[in-house]
């Protein structure tokens, strides 16, 4: 019986001009969203490629200059001398630590346009490179992007509500419900059949369209874990859609008229998609405020001022602590400025490390709270899950930043002893300069969070559906 109702409903939908229009609109939005997302991916790839090109060019120049230099002659400009490790580390030989766009970034730009993805490594403190941002018009960032994630989170529920706000009420208002129920069929079966028919159709279309659009946008299926990520994406979309269908079912079961149903559903949409996230944001930022960055700036300044004032002392102490690095009597490069600078930077790094750690810690605690509170709004659960699956989340950025930290340490381990020993950089050393290798955030660390999200969507969906079916018992078929 259920199957027969579903088939009938599909036929009705296929004949309905509004339904076809809505599906066409969905297709247009999906297509445009992915088109926009892939524009972002192209931009990020282009910027990273340009950085790599810049890096190769500089290193080639450095090698050329180093080969051309007369080993006995003093260079005319010491701060450009390719043989000085401090010069190589801090300007001419700098390498980039860059992250490629997330595996599904073309589908969901998420937070990616807010975070820097390319850092120029240096022997100085982390603060000197970590704050380099991508430049962007603030009004563009304010409005956000029209990506597939936006279509799924905001527009997809509206489409579902548009298709199902009068699921039952329309039949009653047209008088067909009484006629249907004169047949040997239960009301619950009819409603379930209608909802399942619509849900199956719309969810299949939404998933199919997103995957197809993603593939057309050049998603790399052979990339590691990309098919699995696509599968998770589909799961999230289905769970989110199911929630809205269940809500529509429950509201229809209340037995009000179509217009009232529409008002209730739109109000729920506003409450869950627009208002709740904003309120959660307020709750999170007031319960777990991040300390002001302004005071960070001042702390760093005070630390560097103090360290600079004690520059020569710090240098002396450095050599006391690291006697193995003290230069031989006749050090070849008289670059006292650079060694002093390095000692000062080291001290600044040590002083501000706890301050920085406090920020990271507080940010992590804030995210923890979001992770717990997100279940109050299916829109937030979905957005976070889509960001996670796509590799455009805060978590992935933190994973990347940890690698940048590691690279910074490797960079310093390589250069600082050479700087402090006042060595000269040999041409062979250029090949040994540390290189950054990006590692993608493994799906294993993303999966559980996404699974949690899917469960967090499925439980309220099932509860709503059950409540709706239960309430149908008291449904008045006429009037």
């Amino acid at each position: 019986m259920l199957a027969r109702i579903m088939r009938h409903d599909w036929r009705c939908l296929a004949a309905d001009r509004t339904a076809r229009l809505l599906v066409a609109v969905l297709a247009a939005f999906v297509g445009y969203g992915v088109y926009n997302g892939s524009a972002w991916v192209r931009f990020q790839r282009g910027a990273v490629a340009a950085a790599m090109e810049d890096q190769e060019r500089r290193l080639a120049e450095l090698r050329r200059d180093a080969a051309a230099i007369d080993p006995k002659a003093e260079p005319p400009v010491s701060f450009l001398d390719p043989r000085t490790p401090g010069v190589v580390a801090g300007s001419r030989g700098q390498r980039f630590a860059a992250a490629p766009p997330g595996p599904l970034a073309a589908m969901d730009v998420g937070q990616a346009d807010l975070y820097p993805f390319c850092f120029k490594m240096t022997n100085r403190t982390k603060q000197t490179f970590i704050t380099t941002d991508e430049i962007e018009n603030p009004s563009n960032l304010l409005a956000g992007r029209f990506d597939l994630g936006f279509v799924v989170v905001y527009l997809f529920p509206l489409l579902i509500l548009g298709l199902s706000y009068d699921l039952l009420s329309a039949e009653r208002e047209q008088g067909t419900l009484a006629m249907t129920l004169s047949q040997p069929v239960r009301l619950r079966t009819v409603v379930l059949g209608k909802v399942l028919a619509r849900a199956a159709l719309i969810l299949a279309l939404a998933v199919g369209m997103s995957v197809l659009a993603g593939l057309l946008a050049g998603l790399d299926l052979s990339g590691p874990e990309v098919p699995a990520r696509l599968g998770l994406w589909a799961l999230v979309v289905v769970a989110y859609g199911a929630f809205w269908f269940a809500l529509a079912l429950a509201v229809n079961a209340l037995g009000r008229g179509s217009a009232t149903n529409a008002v209730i559903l739109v109000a729920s949409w506003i409450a869950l998609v627009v208002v709740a996230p904003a309120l959660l944001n307020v709750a999170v930022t007031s319960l777990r405020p991040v300390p002001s960055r302004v005071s960070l700036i001042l702390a760093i300044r005070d630390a560097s001022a103090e360290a600079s004032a004690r520059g020569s002392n710090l240098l002396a102490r450095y050599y006391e602590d690291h006697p193995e690095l003290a230069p031989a009597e006749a050090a070849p490069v008289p670059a006292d400025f650079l060694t002093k600078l390095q000692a000062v930077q080291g001290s600044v790094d040590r002083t501000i490390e706890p301050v920085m750690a406090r920020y990271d810690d507080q940010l992590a605690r804030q995210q923890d709270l979001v992770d717990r509170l997100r279940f109050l709004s299916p829109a937030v659960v979905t957005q976070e899950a889509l960001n996670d699956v796509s590799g455009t989340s805060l978590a992935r950025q933190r994973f990347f930043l940890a690698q940048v930290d590691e690279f910074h340490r490797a960079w310093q381990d390589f250069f600082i002893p050479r700087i402090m020993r006042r060595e000269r950089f040999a041409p062979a050393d250029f090949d040994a300069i540390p290189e950054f290798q990006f590692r993608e955030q493994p799906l294993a660390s993303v999966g559980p969070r996404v699974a949690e999200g899917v469960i967090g969507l499925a439980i309220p969906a099932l509860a709503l559906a059950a409540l709706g079916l239960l309430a149908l018992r008291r449904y008045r078929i006429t009037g």
Partner: protein
Amino acid sequence: MIARIARKEFTEMARDGRFRASAAVVLVLLAASIAMGWAHRREVAAQHREAGRATRRQWLEQGAKNPHSAAHYGMYAFKPKMPLSLIDPGVDAYTGVAVWLEAHKQNDFKYRPAQDATALARFGELSSAAVLQLLVPLLIILLSFPAFAGERDLGTLRQVLSLGVRPRDLALGKALGVATALALLCVPSAVLGVLAIGLASDVYSLPDDLPRLALMAVGYVLYLGTFVGASLAVSAWSGSSRAALLTLLAFWVANGLIVPRLSVDVARRLHPTPSSLEFGQAIDRDIKQGMNAHDPADRRLADLKARVMKEHGVGRLEDLKVDFAGIALQESEEYGYRVFDARYAELWGTYARQDEVQRAAALASPLLAVRSFSMAMAGTDPEQHRDFARAAEAYRRVIIKHMNDDIAEHGKGPGVEYIAGDDVWAKVPDFEYTPPGVSRVLARRWPDLAVLGGWLALSSAAAVAAASRIRVS
């Protein structure tokens, strides 16, 4: 007659539980957003003032050093938080809060508050502006979609028109009824807002803040009026209240969600933003064309030497009364200024053109016009951010010039490096920033008001036209 219709419409709404519930929610949200905006702005403004003092103290107490080292040490400029940002934070979360002013380089603003936020922030802040731009129009739609269509569904429209009521009066009366209900909501919030602004402003900015607030209110009245007109027009035109509701909701979604995002992407496609690397490389290339005061082998340095010696009428550099290093440093800075001016003008020009595209899209979405106008009045739009950036850059040049002049004047010494002290740092004046006045902002942003006026005129005309051609069944 109009008054009577308005009264009936208003009484009906006031008795409707749905209206009372949703109005209460909107009122609470408005009040809460004002209170939170007030607290947030007070905290941030105090922080930035304190930081301004601290950076000045750090500058003055940096100790004895060569003035050029001091120029490299530099100073931070912290963006002031405008009093009206408590109503409309505008792009504040997406512009950095501080910029470092140092020798040789014009820096970008660092630390965008949005970067320290979770994914929640992307859903939007709960500001009064957001409530007025998104939620109140929805309330209007929910209030007035049945205005005509509902009466027709019930059959009362036939009765009313048979009494000889002119359809235009009916439309006006209903509009007034909705407006009164809205006023009940917005007037207390506005009073609360004025009080908050009064508490947030200091004595000097209040005479500027109140006109800004008043103009902002005008913008919102035009915007919300548009929705009243559009709702009545659609309600009169539609066959059923269901159709009216769906049409109006589609308009609301397009206005608030779709067109704003579409227009951003279109703007970016028409006027692409360069990547920060591209931008930095272009500046580096240009700077390399100029003179490098640190490079003794630079040919332009030799030219400058010759010119300065000629100006001072001496044959040898040693005979100069001033220190040549200071002059050379200043000369290369001046070249840098030309590069930065040109490159930043180009970048900001791109942004401005992107913003223009978004404003043009206001012809399809009045939200874009009111958003741009409201931010401008709050002093939180991109343009006023750039105004501050320009002021900070001008101040950077003052610092650097003081340092270079001091080197030129006193740096000439016997062989050892010239070291200056606190008295020299104190010669740099404090950084004073005056935001552009309300008249200047209005002179720039009146087109937004004109667009909103156009929308209101159009929707009212549509309402009247639809009402006079209304079909009874």
